[in-house]
């Protein structure tokens, strides 16, 4: 059965092609490409992916304009029906602005753009995105962001931690994120937002320190969970 994934492109997205390439590399099926102005999504989707970049030039706040674009109304409706949604980097920012995920992404505490491969711990393997990892596993995935400092109030942080909704945590402090949270799940576990870029870690390193396959398993997890479901 073919894996039907849709990758959304906003004006200013720049990781949409990488995301589509990763999805096709793992699933063998080309991803559908959607534009921010599209009002409808095709039915029977296995995944909607919101890529990284600088949608609408990060005007107002990162992700704020994209969250109110026509396609996002369709994404919110699909997510409400239980269609899995993955938001990476700017996609994560869009998901918080659209209120599909809790919290917000603030400017990095150190004010600097951070572009390097970071260590993460896998905090919850009981999700369709993370089933291919082992609990507490240490993985390495690149980050590249200026606004990745996850913020939520203390009650919200306690709640999402208590509900197992922290998918990934930075192994070392990275950008000032509350409790070193790098990836967050929705209440039903079917929406994941994360700052690190799994689509940039799908091939063995050609050069020491560059690349790796730790991100590939996130896509493989989804494929195994969704196609077998």
């Amino acid at each position, binding site marked *: 059965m073919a894996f039907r994934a849709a990758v959304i492109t906003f004006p200013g997205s720049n990781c949409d092609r990488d995301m589509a390439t990763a999805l096709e590399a793992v699933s063998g099926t080309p991803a559908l490409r959607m534009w921010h102005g599209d009002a409808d999504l095709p039915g029977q989707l296995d995944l909607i992916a919101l890529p990284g970049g600088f949608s609408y030039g990060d005007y*107002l*706040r990162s992700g*704020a304009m994209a969250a*109110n674009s026509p396609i996002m109304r369709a994404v919110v409706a699909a997510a409400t029906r239980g269609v899995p949604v993955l938001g990476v980097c700017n996609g994560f920012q869009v998901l*918080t*602005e659209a209120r599909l995920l*809790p*919290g*917000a992404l*603030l*400017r*990095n*505490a*150190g*004010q600097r753009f951070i572009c390097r491969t970071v260590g993460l711990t896998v905090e919850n393997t009981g999700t369709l995105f993370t089933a291919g990892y082992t609990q507490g596993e240490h993985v390495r995935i690149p980050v590249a962001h200026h606004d990745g*400092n996850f*913020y*939520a109030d203390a009650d919200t942080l306690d709640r999402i931690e208590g509900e197992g909704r922290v998918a990934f945590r930075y192994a070392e402090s990275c950008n*000032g994120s509350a409790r070193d949270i790098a990836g967050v799940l929705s209440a039903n576990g079917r929406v994941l937002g994360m700052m690190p870029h799994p689509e940039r870690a799908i091939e063995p390193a050609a050069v020491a320190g560059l690349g790796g396959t730790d991100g590939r398993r996130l896509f493989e997890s989804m494929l195994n969970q969704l196609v077998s479901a």
Partner: protein
Amino acid sequence: MQVRVLVRLKPGVLDPQGRAVHHALEGMGFAGVEDVRIGRLIELDVTDGTDEATIRQMCEKLLANTVIESFTIEGASESAN
């Protein structure tokens, strides 16, 4: 008519930009600056009589992210309610 919306980070939300400006002011020799917080001023030119409830909706849906920001509205007509 013109309506002004002031958007501020809520107390307790880290403002790295404000902190950097604070350091810069100190480095320039300005003494006695206790804290700097940077917000955003949005000026809206709207139809006369636009009420505050409408502006409030604009703020809650787009102009501010109420998870991290608060807002105040100046110059809107009083809401009829």
